[in-house]
């Protein structure tokens, strides 16, 4: 391998990349835009559930329930006012207790309790409020369920330590940022083929291995530098920076390999972008799963970015260490080898 040749090729590629106004602009604006998006997103999660309450007589047990973490009751002086507040989405849920609730409970009757929910209240909120009302009835009458309920929290208990939406989004932003470089690289390679400059390179003493090494270094370093810069600014490297950086580096190599594949399919900048956007849409799916838990099922494990996403999410958001993510790193490496090797083969075939 000739390092002088590789250095010259990398310098040439950086020059050409930043002299393409579109990609230069996308690179600079991309990082600024994503930083702005990150910092305008809320940094805290409000874990208090505010519930509207209309109750002419408030049972003593409500005092107990209010002391529980995360519940806050706002009293209203009429059913009508409470309905209006819920309609106006001041609260997501409201509870109406009958005036004679204490008597009914004491006589063993079933008092009617009305619950109001705003139109967009999630199912979890409905479940919480219903459970709370049942619990209140049990506490008030002294008749507990004849079963022993035990609850276990699987995974890290995030009570009081929820992940703010912007930190969930951070993952998506960093992956989108470095994925755009994949399109830039693909465009650069297809431009070399289209304009015939690759033929001029191939009649010099430079080896094809030097050529691909240079492209790999250029693509991966451009993506990695941007990703690392972004993560540094948004505090993504505060926990286990070495794992995050290794993850980003592997991710950058993976996107470079994908860039090679795209370049082998594309004929010019436009088709590079077309294929690139298709790849980005697929690669972004695992990051959506982190932003919106429960939306992505197990099939996402077939997408290489699943492992990159998992590494960054587990480490930066859930404080995971080497022991938790080593397998993801290994699988990501295997995907890298396959993508880079496949990409080089595909471009080699195109050149022949």
């Amino acid at each position, binding site marked *: 391998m000739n390092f002088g040749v590789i250095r010259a090729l990398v310098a*040439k590629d950086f020059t050409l990349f930043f002299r393409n106004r579109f990609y230069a602009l996308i690179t600079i604006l991309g990082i600024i835009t994503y930083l702005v998006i990150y910092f305008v997103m809320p940094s805290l999660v409000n874990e208090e559930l505010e519930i509207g309450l209309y109750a002419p007589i408030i049972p003593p047990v409500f005092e107990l329930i209010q002391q529980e973490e995360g519940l806050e009751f706002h009293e209203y002086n009429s059913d009508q006012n409470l309905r209006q507040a819920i309609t106006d989405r001041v609260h997501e849920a409201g509870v109406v207790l009958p005036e004679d609730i204490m008597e009914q409970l004491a006589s063993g009757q079933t008092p009617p309790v009305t619950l109001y929910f705003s139109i967009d209240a999630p199912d979890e909120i409905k479940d919480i409020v219903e459970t709370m009302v049942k619990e209140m009835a049990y506490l008030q009458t002294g008749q507990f369920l004849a079963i022993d309920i035990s609850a276990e929290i699987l995974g890290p208990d995030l009570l009081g330590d929820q992940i703010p939406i912007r930190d969930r989004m951070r993952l998506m932003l960093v992956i989108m940022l470095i994925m755009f470089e994949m399109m830039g690289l693909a465009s650069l390679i297809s431009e070399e083929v289209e*304009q015939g400059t690759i*033929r*001029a390179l*191939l009649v010099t*003493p430079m080896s094809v291995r030097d050529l691909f090494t240079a492209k790999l270094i250029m693509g991966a370093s451009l993506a990695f530098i941007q990703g690392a810069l972004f993560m540094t600014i948004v505090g993504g490297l505060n926990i286990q920076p070495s794992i995050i950086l290794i993850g980003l580096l592997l991710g950058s190599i993976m996107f470079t390999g994908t860039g090679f594949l795209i370049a082998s399919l594309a004929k010019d900048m436009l088709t590079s972008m077309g294929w690139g956007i298709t790849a980005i849409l697929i690669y972004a799916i695992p990051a959506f799963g982190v932003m919106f838990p429960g939306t992505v099922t197990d099939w996402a494990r077939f997408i290489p970015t699943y492992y990159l996403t998992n590494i960054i999410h587990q480490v930066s958001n859930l404080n995971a260490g080497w022991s938790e993510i080593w397998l993801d790193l290994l699988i990501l490496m295997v995907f890298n080898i396959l993508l880079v090797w496949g990409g080089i083969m595909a471009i080699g075939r195109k050149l022949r």
Partner: protein
Amino acid sequence: MVEQAIIADKLTYSYNNLLAVDHISFHVAKGEILGFLGPNGAGKTTSVKMLTGQLKPKDGKAILLGLDVAENIERVQSEIGVCFEETNLYQRMSAVENLNLFARLFNVKSFNAYSLLARVGLSGREKDRVENYSKGMKQRLMVARSLVSKPQILFLDEPTAGLDPTSSEAIRNIILEERKRGATIFLTTHDMMEADKLSDRVAFMNQGKILALDKPLNLKQKYGKRALKAKVASNKGSLEIREINLDTPQTAEEIQKLFHNEKVVTIHSEEATLEDIFIKITGRGLTE
């Protein structure tokens, strides 16, 4: 014994079932200019690709400077310069940046891009981006790029195609200068006049085969005819043309008769052009 710079030994290449180059053999001596002529699709570019290591022959061998190209590709490529027909420069880089890049790829230690650019007439525009150059300027830069490593063998593919007379002449002068330096030049061209003027020998290629290879003069003598063309004044006052073949035993007698019996107004000799010979050998023109 003459040292050979290029030896093609039964070179063959096919694209799927299409035989593009069919067992061609020839050699080019060191310091010689070989004009490689043929219509589009004749197999010229494929031959050049095999000689420069861009394609691996399906059969036969290409030997440059005594080295088998397929086995010593990097060593061979460090001794050759290639100027392509299509412009394949880095458009968003300047002329100096283009040349410096290739100097580094060829590992040229002390390289002065400015003096090379001055040689091809691009002084004053060295730092302009190539995208702002005219076609002639780009072509001159292409020639300059092929000279970066002072190659022992220079492959030039249509170096003057579509250029104005001044640019064409500048490039022809560079070719002659390079020959004077000792470089061997493999010149692929459609321009028969250019080939005739510059080449020591020319090869005619058609449908993957070399049909003739010799000095232009020998080809003309072998395949063409020499004649005298005279314009004579007729009795009616108009001009008539008389043609006398110069290669027959009766030539001297016919010339004497012409001057004795006719009123000769103008007279000039005429010899076959390479194009005439090409058509005679291949049965088709270069532009077909």
